[in-house]
């Protein structure tokens, strides 16, 4: 197990390094001077030179690369071009906001999806199973950003039940904990979270159903029944076994959610990291864009890494 973790960890570092290098190449090796994108024509040559020195752009490329790797490794992203704040501060705030949207959705999706999927698999060929699976298949394959647009059109603009976007109202609570505890946040959360859940829940449902079907036909289920256990008790055994693949799936789900919620953040004007990336790219605020992309890649990687480790922990068979 220890060797396995070490190997995975080494791989993780390797992949991070590869991605950093790709990022570096993207931002530095592409034709055109990075400064020319944001530096105004009115800048004097001297000012441009000074700015370039400030960002180390006058150094040889290999030195720039080394500095870049070191800075990224310690999360030193520099300052934003336009917002008068360090990039790291901005990104921490936006990442927290993103979590404020996806974590509740994730919890509901996994909890509810597990129960529904397990029941669907257990009661094979029932009307409940067929309905659940059909609806899940549709929601699973439908483009979630259009679902979001539809939800917004119906519930915010037409029925006016829910606010049409944002995380809190203007002049609403500020700061992570204040937002988290507020009613205002909950009202703004409902619609985007529902849209997220409508798609994310289909993963656990379909997965649990199919792994439940497989577990159900295992011999040990017959033995449990022959042992005279109650149906509820047998269902617990079956679900526990069927849950194994879900652990991996949740981690993968989190990473896709983290990168895929860009769309929903735009639609619902949610001030998360995805929206920050889109804005930064529009403003040519490259330090922010680069940092955001790096954070997203890190989340993806750690989640995949976590998936591998968790699987080893939860399945007694894989530990030997």
């Amino acid at each position, binding site marked *: 197990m220890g060797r396995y973790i070490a190997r995975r960890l080494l791989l993780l570092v390797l992949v991070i390094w590869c991605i950093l290098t790709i990022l570096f190449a993207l931002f530095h090796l592409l034709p055109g001077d990075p400064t020319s994108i944001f530096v105004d024509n009115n800048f004097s040559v001297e000012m441009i030179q000074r700015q370039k020195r400030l960002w180390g752009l006058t150094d040889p490329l290999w030195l720039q690369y080394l500095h870049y790797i070191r800075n990224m490794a310690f999360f030193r992203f520099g300052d934003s071009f336009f917002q008068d704040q360090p990039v790291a501060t901005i990104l921490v705030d936006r990442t927290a906001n993103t979590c404020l949207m996806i974590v509740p959705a994730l919890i509901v999706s996994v909890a509810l999806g597990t129960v529904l999927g397990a029941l669907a698999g257990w009661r094979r060929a029932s009307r409940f199973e067929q309905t659940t699976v059909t609806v899940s298949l549709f929601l699973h394959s439908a483009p979630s950003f259009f679902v979001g647009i539809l939800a917004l059109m119906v519930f915010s603009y037409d029925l006016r039940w829910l606010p049409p976007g944002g995380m809190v109202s203007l002049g609403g609570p500020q700061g992570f904990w204040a937002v988290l505890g507020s009613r205002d946040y909950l009202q703004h959360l409902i619609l985007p979270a529902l849209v997220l859940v409508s798609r994310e829940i289909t993963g656990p449902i379909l997965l649990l159903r199919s792994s439940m079907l497989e577990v159900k036909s*295992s*011999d*040990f289920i*017959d*033995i*449990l*029944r*022959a*042992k*005279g*256990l*109650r149906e509820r*008790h047998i269902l617990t*055994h079956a679900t*526990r*076994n069927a849950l*194994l693949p879900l652990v991996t799936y949740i981690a993968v789900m989190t990473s896709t959610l983290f990168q895929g919620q860009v769309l929903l953040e735009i639609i619902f004007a949610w001030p998360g990291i995805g929206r920050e990336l889109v804005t930064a790219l529009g403003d040519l605020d490259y330090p922010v864009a680069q940092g955001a992309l790096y954070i997203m890649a890190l989340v993806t990687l750690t989640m995949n890494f976590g998936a591998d480790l968790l699987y080893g922990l939860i*399945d*007694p*068979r894989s530990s*030997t």
Partner: protein
Amino acid sequence: MALVEIEGLEIRYRTEAGDARAVDGVSLSIEGGQYLGLVGESGCGKSTIAKAILGILPPAGRIEAGAIRYAGRDLVGLPPAELRRLRWRDIALVPQSAMNGFDPVYTIERQMTEAIIAHRRMPRAERRQRIEALFEMVGLERSRIKDYPHQFSGGMRQRAMIAMALVLDPDFIVADEPTTGLDVIVQDQILHRIRTIHDATDKAMLLITHDMAVVSENCDRIAVMYAGRIMEYGGASVFEAPYHPYTLGLCNAFPNLADRDRPLISIPGAPPDLVAPPAGCRFHARCPFATTRCTTEVPELLEVAPGHVVACHYVDRAEEFRARAADPATWGGPCASGSQVLPSRHRTANRDIT
């Protein structure tokens, strides 16, 4: 009254082609302390009977008619709650596939404990003690009760399975091909262990196997099953002096310690389709002695000796059958193709030795 009485049992499986009559009018009885061997080729319905006794038929299977009486109570149609109370406490199972018989994500102890908890109140320490004692009884180390199933070898898992079957001290144990997938030496150990437990505890047991030799070495009574029906049923005389040509064929297919030079002969052909079973005797298509009568008239079980019944029209020609059955030519040569009765146990034995 016998402890277990199976009467006129009919079980069908839904298949795409129609209903398969997996078990067709089987009657058996097992007295307390008796060891019955049920033998037949794979697919003859013997495992289905085991599943029916424990009420774990797959969803496609259903009991069409008949009764399975345990201590006088019919298990067929018993309310689920009552059936549940009876399970494992009175009737336990040593399954065909010990490999997958345990839930892989719980320890063996936990799985044995839950069987106790489901039926009895027993202090924690006493439960632990009982499980450890049973582990010792089946030849496993006490300290290994906390292991997960995957940490055991196939043979150890089957021993653990036997220990689990004994955990509530049931009066009746069904062992459904308990040695499938184990190597020969372990097979013998497991069968010996079951035999010892039977002798020591005097429990009623039903051993299901395809191996005539296993039955002859272990069981008090023998039932030979073919294509969902009982062909011959009785005591040791069933293999000492068989009447039914199918029993003769089965005995031929396994080596006999008393007659080492006798060639192994397998029965040519394959068992019939149970969706549309043949008329008359189900064995007639493969029987070297079949007549036109056999193709039309279903033979009744006739008593040939006290407690020994045979379903053949020609029980009076048994002497002649026995003599002719010993000749490989009767069965279409010593290496008849399409053999279904594979003496796998002993084939593996030879390979292991060489």
